[in-house]
């Protein structure tokens, strides 16, 4: 193999123009080299020589192909040249460039992810046409704004109103889905009027929607599936329409599937026809939700006025049921996502914006400092005719590159932040919203085109804002003044601006860190939850006996007695299971919110619809002992508290303190009896508060009654047979047992096809509650850390810069006898003066923030006295440390500095 020929062949890799120009010459050079080097060289050396030569050609070929065609004679002019020059000058100062890009990138990234969160949860809204027209209805009376809608009222509203295109009713359903080859599942579903789909303006993905004919008496049972069920159970089988499913023990025919992303009203997965049989329900009975679409052009206020008229009409026509009742209208989204959540995410965005502001200030002072340092260079250019415009262009090019790089960093950070929220926050139970822990189907938090544009825009604005001052100064610079070595005037002004910037930074940092501190304390308080209870090793499962359709008398568990028998059979089965150590059935899971039921004090008027209600749980005696609860007074529930014996109850400490004036045992209260009417029950014991309101604990009062005495019908649902349908089972198994399996076994044997769902453990539940606080806490931790970093950089930068400016002055002082440590002390003291001013301003900012921002905190008051002093102390010491480093360098300045004419 002849290296000469090989080289010639390799030269063909070069692109046309380059080859024409250089190939011959390169060949000649190579030949000369080869002739000089080859004789006397070992084979290895020859091979290496040729390899290097060939690599060189390849490298040149790659470079030539990657270069833009140079159309101008001078490749460094024009916009591209500007950017390249700017890139070069930035690359020459890597510390500065990197600090700017990192600082801005952090600020932009945090702001962008917060914005994505706000946009995805609050701003995006429902994925329907003109979503602002969708209104949720409830009823209200003198005491409550959240009474359910009754079927009669719904029908009357529909007929009488003038402000809505249509109204539709719906209600939640417990849907037990059964198929022969899979374990039964409980699915969130909804009984819904067919007109709702037209109202919302949605089309099915497969098959058809529910229709009014499905709602007629005697129509065959049908179901409309959601995409998730179609996916999970049928692997998106296109032949799904017409198949039969057992829903609540009854075969239903699938008529269609909804497209992905539709889970109206909140996170429902299937829809069944709602039959409003007005003849079988009394006025004032029954419970529905209702949604309506406003007529084009009408607003909520006009609709409310219209419904005031309608409600008055109904109250006059049916005083027994509708006196004092009014319609309560709310924007649909507002009904399901409460203000607490909205204010939390907005606060997140505000805090992130403050961090961005901090970053911009940092960058501004960095650019200022650099601008002054480069003043000489710029002055030369300006004075020799370079033109102010040219100088400004150069600075602007640098700004563009910095903004671009920050945008990239910011986008990457935002991607991480958004991904984290979507992952953690999307888990049901993380956010306790108005209707529980389910994630609304219209939430869609992701980093999409709009968010990225936001990132770009914010980076641009931040850099422009931060860089504006130096650019303006560059434009206005008087070259003569800059060229003179006496630059005291300009640097004094720069110094003042830089100092003001540091003060502002401090103030902002105090604001952000105090919010972060509050959130942090909140998270720490969470560790109190569950203290004192034995939570380990207890499994939890929920069992739901199927809903019967309205009017259906058949089916297992159609009557209350059969349901009662099921539960006692289950109890016995579990007791006999050798793998089960102890089990307890109840209607409460520790740490989750307990449903409310009416109650009255004995002195209240005998009014079964009395305004009071309280968290009421029906539990077996073992429930308390499993968790290690001991009574504060009196006794716990016992096996002797049976169905036929005296009604008893155990209350928690908050209930005792609020309603029973501190002494409970032996007192009587009125609780719902078997017919629903309130009857007397004796309080036999007091237990500590056990988080009956979840961990929010806004209504901590609670009552525990024996499960054996459960069964009072409640005014729940359009179906009046809800009592004794659901319970949760707590099971502690023996060592190594699989209690979930044991529970399934027992239920399957007693009632095949009835699903066991929500399987987890008490420990898991404990971990999951408070997930919301931890999520926010994590964000604020990042905010706080970034703010601290910015302050560090900001103070360090300022002190370093000012020490640099005052070298001569320091040199003079040293020459006049000032010693090192004194210089250090002087520099640090000056810096700390500034820090203190900033902290003072920051204290005001923190007070304002704490009072005006409503935060969701756990057991921490917004005005917590510990947080702000701690934050002030932290920032003070950070400032001191940041000032110390350049101060130490100042301490080593030699007197000869005084002589330098820089």
């Amino acid at each position, binding site marked *: 193999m002849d290296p000469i020929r090989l080289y010639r062949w390799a030269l063909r890799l070069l692109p046309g123009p380059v080859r024409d120009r250089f190939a011959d010459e390169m060949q000649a*050079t190579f030949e000369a080299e080869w002739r000089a080097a080859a004789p006397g060289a070992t084979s290895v050396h020859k091979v290496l020589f040729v390899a290097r030569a060939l690599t*060189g050609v*390849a490298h*040149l070929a790659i470079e030539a192909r990657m270069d833009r065609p140079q159309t101008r004679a*001078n*490749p*460094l002019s024009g916009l591209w040249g500007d950017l390249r020059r700017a890139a070069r000058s930035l690359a020459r100062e890597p510390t500065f460039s990197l600090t700017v890009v990192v600082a801005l990138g952090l600020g932009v990234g945090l702001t962008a992810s917060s914005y994505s969160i706000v946009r995805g949860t609050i701003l995006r809204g429902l994925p329907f046409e003109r979503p602002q027209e969708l209104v949720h209805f409830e009823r209200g009376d003198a005491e409550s704004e959240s009474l359910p809608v009754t079927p009669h009222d719904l029908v009357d509203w529909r007929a009488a109103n003038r402000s809505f295109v249509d109204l539709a009713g719906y209600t939640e359903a417990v849907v037990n889905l059964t198929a022969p080859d899979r374990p039964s599942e409980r699915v969130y579903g909804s009984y819904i009027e067919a007109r709702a789909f037209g109202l919302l303006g949605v089309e099915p993905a497969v098959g058809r929607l529910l229709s009014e004919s499905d709602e007629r008496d005697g129509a065959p049972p049908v179901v409309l599936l959601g995409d998730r069920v179609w996916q999970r159970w049928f692997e998106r089988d296109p032949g799904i329409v017409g198949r039969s499913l057992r829903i609540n023990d009854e075969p239903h025919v699938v008529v269609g599937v909804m497209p992905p992303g539709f889970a109206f009203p909140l996170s429902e997965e299937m829809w069944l026809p709602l039959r409003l049989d007005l003849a079988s329900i009394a006025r004032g009975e029954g419970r529905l939700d209702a949604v309506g679409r406003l007529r084009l052009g009408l607003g909520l206020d006009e609709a409310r006025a219209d419904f005031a008229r309608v409600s008055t009409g109904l109250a006059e026509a049916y005083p027994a049921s509708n006196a004092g009742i009014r319609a309560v209208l709310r924007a649909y989204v507002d009904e399901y996502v409460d203000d607490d959540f909205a204010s939390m995410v907005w606060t997140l965005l505000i805090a992130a914006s403050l961090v961005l502001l901090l970053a911009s200030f940092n960058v501004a002072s960095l650019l200022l400092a650099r601008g002054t340092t480069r003043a000489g260079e710029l002055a030369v250019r300006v004075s020799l005719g370079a033109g102010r415009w*040219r100088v400004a262009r150069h600075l602007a090019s640098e700004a563009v590159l910095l903004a671009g790089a920050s945008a990239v960093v910011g986008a990457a950070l935002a991607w991480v932040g958004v991904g984290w929220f979507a992952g953690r926050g999307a888990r049901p139970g993380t956010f306790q919203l108005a209707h529980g822990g389910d994630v609304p189907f219209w939430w869609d938090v992701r980093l999409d085109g709009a968010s990225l544009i936001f990132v770009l825009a914010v980076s641009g604005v931040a850099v422009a804002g931060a860089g504006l001052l130096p650019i303006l100064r560059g434009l206005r610079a008087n070259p003569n003044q800059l060229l003179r070595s006496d630059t005291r005037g300009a640097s004094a002004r720069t110094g003042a601006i830089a100092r003001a910037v540091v003060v502002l930074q401090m103030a902002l940092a105090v604001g952000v860190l105090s919010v972060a501190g509050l959130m942090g304390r909140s998270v720490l308080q969470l560790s109190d939850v569950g203290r004192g209870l034995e939570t380990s090793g207890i499994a939890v499962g929920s069992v739901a006996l199927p809903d019967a359709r309205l009017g259906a008398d058949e089916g297992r568990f159609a009557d209350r007695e059969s349901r009662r028998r099921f539960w006692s059979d289950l109890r016995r089965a579990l007791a006999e299971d050798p793998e089960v150590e102890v089990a307890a059935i109840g209607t409460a899971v520790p740490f989750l919110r307990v449903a409310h039921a009416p109650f009255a004090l004995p002195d209240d008027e005998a009014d079964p619809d009395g305004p009071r209600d309280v968290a009421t749980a029906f539990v077996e005696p073992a429930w308390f002992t499993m968790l290690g609860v001991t009574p504060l007074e009196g006794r716990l529930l016992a096996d002797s508290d049976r169905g036929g014996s005296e009604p008893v109850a155990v209350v928690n400490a908050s209930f005792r303190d609020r309603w029973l004036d501190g002494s409970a045992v032996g007192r009587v209260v009125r609780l719902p009896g078997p017919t629903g009417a309130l009857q007397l029950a004796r309080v036999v014991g007091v237990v500590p508060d056990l988080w009956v309101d979840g961990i929010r604990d806004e209504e901590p009062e609670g009552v525990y009654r024996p499960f054996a005495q459960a069964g009072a019908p409640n005014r729940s649902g359009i179906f009046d047979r809800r009592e004794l349908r659901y319970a949760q089972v707590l099971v502690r198994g023996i060592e190594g047992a699989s209690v979930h399996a044991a529970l399934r076994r027992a239920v399957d044997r007693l009632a095949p096809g009835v699903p066991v769902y929500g399987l987890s453990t008490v420990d898991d539940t404990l971990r999951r509650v408070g997930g919301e606080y931890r999520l926010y806490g994590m964000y604020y931790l990042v905010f706080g850390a970034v703010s601290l970093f910015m302050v560090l950089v900001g103070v360090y930068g300022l002190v370093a810069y000012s020490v640099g400016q005052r070298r001569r002055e320091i040199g003079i002082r040293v020459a006049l006898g000032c010693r090192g440590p004194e210089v250090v002390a002087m520099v640090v003291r000056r810096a700390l003066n500034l820090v203190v001013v900033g902290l003072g301003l920051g204290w005001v900012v923190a007070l304002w923030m704490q009072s005006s921002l409503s935060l969701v905190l756990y057991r921490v008051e917004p005005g917590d006295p510990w947080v702000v002093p701690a934050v002030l102390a932290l920032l003070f010491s950070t400032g001191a440390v940041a000032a110390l480093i350049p101060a130490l360098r100042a301490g080593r300045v030699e007197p000869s500095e005084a002589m330098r004419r820089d």
Partner: protein
Amino acid sequence: MILDPLRPNPSDFVPLKAVVMEILLAVADRPRHGYGILQEVREAAAGSIRLDTGPLYRHLRRLLEQGLVVEVDRPVEGEDDDERRRYYALAPLGREVMEFEGRRLSALLDRGRALGFLSS
């Protein structure tokens, strides 16, 4: 030297890579062809800089584009007869850049010596 808006600033080219400086030095006193530059650099740098054909032409190409080096006609007293060889010389801009860089390095040296860690 007049700085006009369209003319590139010598300061944009510095700091020069060591090997680029060697190439510019090689064509500073008289025009040379590619192989001649290679020989000169290897001799002058005495092993501290390594230059191969490929990299030489990469740098030459860029220097030509930047205007620091120009191609010149073969000197009358041709050293050899290879028709394929082309000759290169330092352009005025290249000279300015070398001067600028030289001054910069010289100032550095002075300060280093003054501080006592660069021997004279």
